[in-house]
């Protein structure tokens, strides 16, 4: 079966350092695929390459049978790929409501947006999503004053406002409380019925609760792929991966 997102023989080097080294991946529609791997395995770089933040040295990325390699960030986003950053990136000077409004990107044309004040459907969707991510009470305040967990929620909310065909989530539960994580699990399990999702995650406990497919990366290439049960049994994975869970990647 052809995946909605296909990565073929991806390479990326910074100066002399090879960060991604012949990585290939196929992501099936309506699945949640977790990208795991030790520090420096190239997980975030892969997300960067898919979302256009960086350009691959060689290789090809296809999304819905369209080659998106080398397109710029906004072009990729417009094709329905939404992204959440490792360090939550929200507009700190804007209110929570404004953050969500900006993310409602049905219309991206600058000229048409000059004459648009209240886009159709925005308010309704905003209410729903704010309720979903538990920020209804906080809509009027500046995003910069939110707690860390709330900021994570807000960014997830922003990705949802985009209504993307595919979500790239870089460590969505970092810094969340147990209770918040439960809620995230709940949302992701609901979302994967309608969306394709890639999650980069360290926390295997979390991965266990959401993943349909787990992909293990090591040294910039694919080490293993399969269900969580398969992966946990894999000797090579144990070798490279265990014990490095709580490290942070230096490049984000």
């Amino acid at each position, binding site marked *: 079966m052809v995946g909605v997102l296909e990565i073929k023989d991806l390479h990326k080097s910074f100066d002399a350092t090879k960060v991604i080294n012949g990585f290939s991946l196929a992501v099936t529609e309506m699945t949640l695929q977790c990208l795991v791997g030790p520090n420096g395995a190239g997980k975030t770089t892969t997300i960067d390459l898919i979302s256009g933040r960086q350009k691959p040295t060689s290789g090809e990325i296809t999304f819905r049978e369209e080659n998106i390699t080398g397109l710029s960030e906004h072009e990729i986003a*417009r094709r329905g790929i939404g992204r959440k950053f490792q360090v939550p990136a929200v507009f700190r000077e804007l209110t929570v409501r404004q953050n969500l*409004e*900006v993310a409602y*990107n049905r219309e991206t044309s600058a000229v048409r*947006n000059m004459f648009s*004040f209240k886009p159709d459907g925005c308010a309704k969707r905003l209410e729903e999503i704010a309720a979903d991510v538990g920020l209804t009470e906080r809509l*009027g305040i500046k995003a910069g004053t939110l707690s860390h967990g709330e900021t994570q929620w807000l960014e997830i909310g922003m990705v949802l406002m*985009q209504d993307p065909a595919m979500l790239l989530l870089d460590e969505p539960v970092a810094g969340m409380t147990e209770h918040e994580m439960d809620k995230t699990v709940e949302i992701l399990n609901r979302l994967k019925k309608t969306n394709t999702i890639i999650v980069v995650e360290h926390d295997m406990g979390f991965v266990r609760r959401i993943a349909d497919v787990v992909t293990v990366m090591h040294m910039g290439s694919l080490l293993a792929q399969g269900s969580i049960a398969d992966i946990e049994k894999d000797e090579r994975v144990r070798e490279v991966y265990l014990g490095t869970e709580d490290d942070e990647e230096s490049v984000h």
Partner: protein
Amino acid sequence: MEKNLYHNRLLQWLVYVVFFAALAVIPLVMDDAFLLNQLATYGVYGMLALSISLCWGFGGILNLGQGIAFGLGAYGMAMTMQMQTQDPEYSPIPPFMLNNGLDALPAIWEPFWNTGFGIALALIVPTVFYLIFGGLMFQARVAGPFFAIMTLAILSALATLFVDLQPYTNGVNGISPPAALDIGGFVIDPYMSTSYWVVFALLVLSTVAAKLLTQSRFGLIVQALHNDSERVRFLGYNVAIYETLVYAASGLIAAIAGCCFAFLTQYVSPAQFDVGFSISMVIWAAIGGRNSLLWAIIGAFLVQGAQSYVGDEFLNSWILILGFSFILIVRFLPGGLGGLAETLLGMVSRKRETQESLTVGAGEPETRGA
């Protein structure tokens, strides 16, 4: 959720109405040709400060070369006015060209025979220039201080060019059209209240347009990219286009200001591209309050008013005072006088709120700027 009165949209519009109503009353109660002319000139400076506020305070694009659009607009208007005083039969070309070795009107001057065409060009040329230059720079992701320096470079280059093209521009001496602008029989005499009304109307128009722009979705996205332009890209917006357009919109306002300035003073020269003048536009906006369109305008009125009426008393120390107050404002009051008003109103509102003692949690701004 509105806590600080400063951020109340209704109140903001009300303040605009009060300010402009006050400006509108002046010619009805005053009959001083000089004062009206002077206030009209301040109105032009107000437009420039407005354009800086839109571009810098709102869009985060510091522009030290706003003289580019201002100067190009002024030249376009001055050329139009100059051609109005020419006659196809008796004096087909401006006098200065004769002694610069031209015996026929250069092609770039031809469109200015027609007043409508000329004024249109005076607005279109600078705007298109901004679109091209801004497009080039923002696409290459030149931003922040670098963009500011680039605008300075272009400004200096244009000044040099207009000096060097002496046969077409009269070089350093500039163009002084000897008669007032005449639009289809409607004479905008710079020493009558008509010119005041025209400038006033254009100031109101551009302020309202700019205000609406900031409140549109376009404005929302520009605010977002001022905050974190990288993040906006991943939401599917082409940041370079947004930046270019907000820059060009501010350029259009500056071009309108240039046109007004040309018919008010009947003079244009490469000094319009003076670096110091472009930076003083930024000073007006900074002192008034860069984040607020209205306060930026007030800043221009205050600083220029002080220069005209207080400056002579102090003569040599005036620039010293201006420099020091600018430093102090940047250091301690980045929001300018408008920011001060925001803080004070915030304190007042909060106090009232505690007295009512109903709400929990700190109120925070909803909209940027007044």
